[in-house]
């Protein structure tokens, strides 16, 4: 019985909690991709770097706040900086839209042209981030590190396994829930949100009923900048901020959006968790859990790790391929062109 408890705690500590936190970050990122796909109708390759730009502004403001001695007590100062990060990202994204994307929208360019344009934007954001903050790793999390540390948990319960719950993980999940709830309320209840959905479902009909497309696009970019910044800051708090890592996040984020069904916000969230759980689950060495759950005679010798952690990109990719082969529109029936 105690073994079973130990096994469950180990499972929660090493798989469930990290995967839920990572999944929330991916879900927020995928929501941004899916909104752009639904409304502007192209796959935005610059999304990872949009996250990096927003996070960069937030990190800079965090440093400034820390320098002034402002803090949130047990919470990371970066939470205070998120609105500034969103402002920065929104400004950059709106400028990009005005000077770059708008032209192609007016031309009704093919989606693939917009994808190539977003590649150029990706280069520029990437260079911009690196010029301002440099290519290095930055940790900017401060405040209390743990809500429950492994040691306290062991003392509390008397179990052999500890359960560590980091502050950043709790903040990630809580923030993600709040942001997603706000987004869905906005999309389903407000006039602007409804006009966005109408625009996504059928552009011509939306135009006929007097919806202003430029306004829809503007609101979309604002939401995308907010989502990207929040996702980026949460990821950075949980791990660390590095321009290149954010660029690489593009793959799991796109995988999440496609697995859920491109253009479908609910799908993006589900996709984020599917990808996160499989990444963590497949790259985790299960021995630690199995030791408690299996009878001693059957205990495994090796680490029981299906793939080493360096292959986590392979996991998102394989899931993506499987979904594409068997359900090309994604789990939640997104758009198909």
């Amino acid at each position, binding site marked *: 019985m105690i073994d079973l408890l130990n096994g469950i705690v180990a499972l929660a500590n090493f798989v469930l909690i990290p995967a839920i936190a990572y999944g929330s970050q991916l879900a927020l990122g995928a929501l941004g991709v899916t909104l752009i796909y639904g409304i502007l109708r192209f*796959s935005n390759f610059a999304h990872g770097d949009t996250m990096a730009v927003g996070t960069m502004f937030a990190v800079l403001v965090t440093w400034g706040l820390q320098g002034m001695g402002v803090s949130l007590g047990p919470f990371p100062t970066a939470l205070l900086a998120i609105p500034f990060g969103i402002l920065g990202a929104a400004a950059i994204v709106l400028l990009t839209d005005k000077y*770059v994307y708008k*032209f192609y929208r007016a031309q009704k360019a093919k*989606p*693939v*042209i917009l*994808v*190539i*344009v977003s*590649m*150029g*934007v*990706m*280069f*520029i*954001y*990437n*260079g*911009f981030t*690196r*010029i*301002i903050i*440099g*290519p290095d790793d930055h940790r900017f999390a401060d405040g209390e590190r743990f809500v429950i540390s492994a040691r306290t948990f062991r003392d509390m319960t008397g179990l052999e396994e500890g359960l560590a719950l980091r502050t950043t993980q709790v903040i990630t999940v809580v923030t993600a829930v709040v942001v997603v709830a706000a987004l869905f309320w906005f999309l389903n209840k407000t006039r602007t949100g409804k006009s966005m959905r109408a625009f996504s479902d059928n552009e011509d009909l939306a135009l006929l009923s007097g919806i202003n497309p430029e306004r829809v696009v503007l609101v979309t970019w604002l939401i995308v900048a907010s989502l990207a910044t929040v996702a980026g800051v949460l990821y950075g708090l949980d791990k660390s901020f590095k321009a*290149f890592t954010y*660029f*690489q996040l*593009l*793959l799991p984020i*796109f*995988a999440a959006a*496609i697995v859920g069904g*491109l253009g479908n916000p609910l799908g993006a969230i589900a996709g984020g968790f599917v990808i996160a759980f499989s990444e963590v689950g497949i790259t985790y060495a299960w021995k630690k859990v199995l030791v408690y759950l299996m009878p001693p005679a059957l205990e495994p010798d*090796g680490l029981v790790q*299906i793939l*080493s952690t*360096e*292959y986590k*990109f*392979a996991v*998102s*990719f394989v899931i*993506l*391929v499987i979904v*594409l*082969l068997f359900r*090309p529109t994604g789990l939640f029936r997104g758009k*198909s*062109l």
Partner: protein
Amino acid sequence: MRTVLLFAVVACLILGTGVLQSWNAALLILNMGLISAIMALGVNLQWGLAGLFNVGVMGFVALGGLAVVLISMPPVGAAWQAGGGGILLGLTLGAATIVAAVLVWSRTSGKLRGWATAAVLLVGMVIYRMVLDPAVDAVESVDAARTGYLGGLGLPVLLAWPVGGVLAAGAAYVIGKTALGLRSDYLAIATLGIAEIIIAVLKNEDWMARGVKNVIGLPRPVPYEVDLQNDPAFVERAAGFGMDATTASTIYVKLEYGVLFAAVLVVLLVLAQLALNSPWGRMMRAIRDNETAARAMGKDVTARHLQVFILGSAICGVAGAMMTTLDGQLTPGSYQPLRYTFLVWVMVIVGGSGNNLGAVLGGFLIWFLWVQVEPMGQLLMSGLTAGMPDGSWLKDHLMDSVQHMRLLTMGLILLLVLRLNPRGLLPER
């Protein structure tokens, strides 16, 4: 006319580098420019001719690099004895598992289908790991500091170039089989993913090509500088040109590489031009411009796409093998998508998609800019910061950021070309 003029401009740029900086720098740009031109040719075949959106160039280039190691390095006997058989057996079992799973999936039906396939995969995976893991450990522990891998076949390095193409073609077949026929964005994401996976495999499978420990000292198809400097006849000839032996030898070696690369480029360019103007090329363009009409005419669109996808990727593989030969080392850590995938795309778009000569021109031009933006930025920044006191953090920061200017510049160039001249410098005819 325009073509000749633009190529003359690029030639002037490279010659200018030779006169103003050094001939070694100019030849370095020329050689990498040749390789970049070949990569651009490969992407142009896929995008310009068939409209396929491949953003996995980096992976195919890296596979070419792997081919150089597998073909040209001498085999490590001790490692083969320690676990060579085990690794081969393990890989065969892995492949057999996949084949068996596919067979089970296609031969069964009903509710059990999914479970049966999953069971076959699981059991196969366990056996595969049980065979492979100890063999890998054995191989990697053989003189880990110097070898720790199986080595290659010890064949002439030039043979690695076509083999690199074959490896890339194999990968392209697998990816094309799954992702082609779906939407264009899906192919983009799939290729992006496969490139990352190939790099991850190269970094982590130490038994294959030493992973991040890098394979250095790859055999060369040209003489070594040191040998030339010790060759009295060469020194004498160099003196005849009024050069010291060291400079002369480095230039000579680079020239010889340049000739080899140019030969490959010319062959591929001629083939690409012939393909473009053949009935096959016209069919490809017809498919690109109107898939539905082409399908109605009885063309097998997916098969043709697969064909051109494999061909283009193979060309990228050849270019990758050539690049690794030029470097003399395989460093998996240095493969970055911005440099190897997206830069090639900038080349194709700027040069003119659909025009082979345009792709070649773009390859040279963009590579020249990629190399030269940094010194130019340095100049600009020192001009900007001249008035600032030495050691001020802003000055240091600005000078540090020079190296990132190139990303910004490339993005700007791409956006400007797409906006002002979307058909590129040399438009498709």
